[in-house]
């Protein structure tokens, strides 16, 4: 009779005592916010591991609330769905930021340069564009060419960097002027990512200084870069002007390929 009286007359005590199902479930999951925000792992002993790959921008995002077991005023990280303040990425460790950016670069690279089922839809190809990847690739190519050169090293770097950076901007403006439909920074990002095969080629040519090998390697990587950039650029303009939009892209990559072959 005692326990029954307790339960029926004091239901709140029962609820407060035992951990409710609502707060037990989130300990299995984590806050997985849509694209760029992440979970601050500041001081709360969160039990679940950090997701290692960036979440795809789809609808199947498990949104849950992770509440620390101590019922104190700890910051409650909540996903960016309007139920609270957005997560604060300023307080996360630097390594988490770097890891997240690297993961994004890798995923963008896989989408753009390697064969995958999304290639036919240019809009989806680089929806999560960033400029870190292109920056690394351009600087890496400039540095590799500069290391390979025997004279005028700094001028080689300057020419390579100027050609690639100004070239990407001018190519994007070219498509816009021809009446095409692209987003400016998405196109810059794409042209930078398509440099990755030429980076690999430049590295190989720097290590092994044989002219025939250089020609073969540069031809292969040039074809690969052009194949990566083709669907995006050709879909962006009117079909009657497709060649006008694609020719400057090939021109830029061919000139960079020539630089790789000729610098010794």
């Amino acid at each position: 009779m005692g326990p029954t009286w307790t339960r029926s007359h004091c239901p709140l005590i029962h609820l407060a005592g035992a951990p409710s199902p609502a707060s037990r479930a989130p300990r299995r999951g984590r806050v997985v916010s849509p694209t760029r925000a992440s979970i601050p792992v500041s001081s709360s002993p969160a039990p679940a591991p950090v997701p290692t790959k960036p979440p795809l921008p789809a609808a199947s995002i498990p949104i849950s609330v992770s509440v620390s077991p101590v019922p104190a005023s700890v910051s409650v990280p909540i996903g960016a769905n309007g139920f609270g303040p957005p997560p604060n990425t300023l307080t996360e460790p630097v390594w988490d930021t770097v890891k997240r950016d690297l993961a994004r670069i890798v995923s963008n690279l896989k989408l753009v340069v390697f064969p995958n089922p999304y290639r036919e839809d240019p809009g989806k190809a680089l929806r999560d564009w960033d400029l870190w990847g292109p920056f690394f690739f351009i600087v890496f190519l400039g540095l590799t060419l500069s290391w390979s050169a025997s004279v005028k090293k700094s001028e080689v770097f300057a020419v390579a960097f100027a050609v690639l950076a100004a070239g990407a901007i001018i190519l994007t403006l070219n498509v816009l002027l021809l009446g095409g439909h692209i987003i400016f920074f998405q196109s810059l990002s794409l042209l930078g990512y398509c440099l990755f095969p030429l980076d690999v080629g430049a590295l190989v040519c720097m290590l092994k200084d044989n002219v025939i090998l250089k020609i073969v390697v540069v031809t292969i990587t040039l074809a690969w870069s052009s194949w990566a950039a083709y669907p995006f650029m050709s879909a962006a303009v009117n079909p009657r002007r497709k060649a006008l939009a694609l020719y400057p892209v090939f021109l830029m990559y061919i000139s960079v390929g020539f630089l790789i072959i000729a610098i010794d």
Partner: protein
Amino acid sequence: MDEGYANLPTSHLLGSVPAVTQDDRKPSPPTAQDAAATSRLQEFPPAPGGNGGGYRPPGGPADGDVENQADWKGYFNVASYAPYFNVDTDVVVDRLISSIYPMDGFYRKIDANPDMYGPLWITTTLVFMLAAFGNYATYLMQNKNDLDIWNFDVGYFSWAASVMYGYAVIVPGMFFFLFQYFGSRQSLVRFWCMWGYSLFVFIPGSVLLLIPVEFLRWVIIALAGGASSWFIALNLKECTEGADLMVLMASASVLQFALALFIKVFFFA
């Protein structure tokens, strides 16, 4: 394909690169639009107001004196230069071919729709070709003479860029002002277009200049320079009909030939 880009609401943002709006994709009505387009293209730079589907500066008055107030905004807007790139692939190829053949129909082709796509990419291609083939040609010459001191000269890129872009921009501008001074009103855009297309003959010329026989090189560059000068003279005569300015036409031809000689001497030594 995802057509959502045309609906991006960026046109109201000052200074942003506007996504092309819906109006641009309607096929333009044939006659009325062309007359307006031609009259708009007579003057360079373009006035921002009245561009079909382009960006309109916010808050400007809708009447005639919009040019005075909002004129400077047209320079920094991508959409205001789009009329000069209104060409298709076959049109560009046709103009390129007629720049080599000695027929005198070129100026009539560009009169209604001068494009800046041709001059821009012809000069850029020429910059790369001169730098690349110039290096390769000096390499071949040194190989033939059994010298082993060749090094890739990356300064060729800087020199080629300065010379070609400088020539293609400054020389037509200079002649525009000279023609104005002598009273004959010309169109600067058409001058730029014409001079740009006249440089196209140097592209196959620089490929042929790889042949490491010195006498043959001089013959090739003389032919290319001569063709280019003749193209310029012919088209200048056509566009300035009625004004007897032989001095200017002769000096334009001489300048073009001097450019050809400079290319040979500097890049293909």
